[in-house]
Each structure stands twice: as C-alpha cells, then as structure tokens.
C-alpha cells in the first residue's frame, strides 16, 4: 500500500449527499492528477437510514476496492448519527473525526467517546443554510477536509466549483458554494 494513501470514511444519512461529497473530493483529485476512488457501501436506498461512503486518495494507482477498515479521516455529515453509529469503528488512535455540528469539539467530547482521536467540528449545515439557503452540508465539509488533510487546497476547491461545478449550475449558485467553502475552511475548530 502506498505511503501517500489517505483513506476517508463518510457517515451520513440516505439522501443527505455523503456520496455527492465523496464524489466532489474525487473530482478535485482528478483535476490535479491524483489517484482517487469514491464509493458508497451499497444497499437498498432508504432515505434517512445511516449510510457509509468511502474515499481514497493517493499519488499511486489505487488497486484495493475493499471497504475502508481503518480510516485516517472520518467525516460525520449529521451529528444525530453519533448516538446511532460508532463512527470511530476501526479508526486508529491518530485518526481525525470531523463532525458537522454547531457545538464545539469539547462539548461533543463530553457526550461521546472518541478516544485519543482528534475531533474537529464545523457548523456545515448552518453555513449551507446561510450561503445556499438549503441544508446541504457538502461543500463546507469538503473544505474542512482540505484544511485538515492538506490533500488539496481551498483554491483547488474554488477552481472546481467555478469550472466543473459551474458547468451545471448558474453563477449565483456557484458563488454561494464558493462562499460556503471559504466559511467552512475558516470555521473548522479543533
């Protein structure tokens, strides 16, 4: 396995866009010559049910299609999952957990056991509501991932939103997403 390999696990609910977020990261990686892989844990589509998706990023071709067992990064798109799913399952002690919540890391650490893992929080849904007018936390979550992993930059997210994303959506939506990305990058806290 390549030493440059980063394995990411996404926790969300059916219909919340975890797969879309994983795909966005994959597209950014593609635009910058990185090797990547993004896939959900397949099953019956059930709106609201806890779902899991995976992203792998690497400088070398990715050959393993198994589920990610030991994610270095765990992203939780919906904080209500914390009481339903063990989001730290299999994540090593030095893993980072990024939770979409308006609470601070110290507040949620009081309620849930994350072990020695680094815990970050980001009010991604709040940001999305402010900027996009809709509760779609994907873009700020992706920029939080960029800040914490350094695998890609805020500028690269911006490029992606303006160019690839911009082909499908009107400029107003694109700029709202760019703003969401910036806010996400700024508002992550450890």
């Amino acid at each position, binding site marked *: 396995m390549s030493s440059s390999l980063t394995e990411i696990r996404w926790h969300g*609910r*059916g219909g919340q866009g975890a797969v879309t977020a994983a795909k966005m990261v994959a597209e950014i990686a593609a635009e910058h010559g990185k090797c990547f892989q993004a896939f959900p844990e397949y099953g019956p589509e059930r*709106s*609201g049910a*806890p779902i899991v998706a995976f992203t792998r990023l690497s400088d070398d071709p990715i050959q393993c299609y198994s589920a990610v067992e030991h994610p270095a990064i765990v992203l939780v798109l919906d*904080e*209500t999952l914390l*009481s*339903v799913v063990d989001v730290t399952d299999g994540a090593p002690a030095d893993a980072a957990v990024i939770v979409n*919540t308006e609470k601070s890391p110290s507040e949620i650490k009081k309620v849930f056991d994350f072990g020695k893992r680094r815990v970050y929080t980001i009010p991604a849904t709040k940001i999305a509501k402010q900027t996009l007018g809709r509760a779609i936390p994907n873009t700020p979550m992706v920029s939080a991932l960029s800040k914490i992993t350094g695998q890609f930059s805020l500028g690269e997210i911006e490029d992606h939103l303006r160019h690839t994303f911009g082909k499908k959506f009107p400029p107003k939506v694109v700029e709202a997403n760019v703003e969401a990305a910036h806010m996400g990058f700024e508002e992550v806290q450890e």
Partner: protein
Amino acid sequence: MTWDIKDIQKWSPEEHELGAVIPEAGNATLYKTGGWRSERPVRDEEKCTQCLFCYFYCPDTAVLVEDGKVVAFDYDHCKGCGVCATECPVDAITMHPETEFEGGC
C-alpha cells in the same frame, strides 16, 4: 417459535435455517429503524382532534393507538418521514430536529 440469533454472526452454513427461512413470526419489530430519523414528530395534545389520520398514514405503524385514541409515537420504529405532520388536518403534529432531544446529540 422464538429464534435465538444472539450469535448468528458466528453461525456456520449448517446452523442457518434451510432456504433462509425465518422461523419466528413478527420479529421485524426487533429491527429498530428509529435511528434513521433526523427529525421526530411531536403531537400537540390540545390541538389533536383524534381523527387518526396519522395512524392510518404512518407507513411504519409507529403511531400508537389505545382505545381508539392516539397516545404516543413509537420512536424505536418511527423513521421521521413526516407524513403524519403533513397529513394532520389541524397541524397538531410538528417535526423537530433530533438534536433538540436528550440522547439525540
């Protein structure tokens, strides 16, 4: 019969029922779907006219009725779809984020 599946993850192929039969009736209730919910329905007792629309519309039989009256929601199985709130003719049912409740987050 009652079906003891405590260790089912460790069962050998021979330990499973032939043809994947589930030999216990009505055990779908053991599968708690409440965890799918990000919003929960809350009923205003004052506004409720006991028309039972919520009971008939609920796809998960999660509206509990006793003696012809709605008494509670079964939060172990309610998936938070909100059809009860949508169909309530007097707006007695409202949906609230799970984060507002203890044990939510």
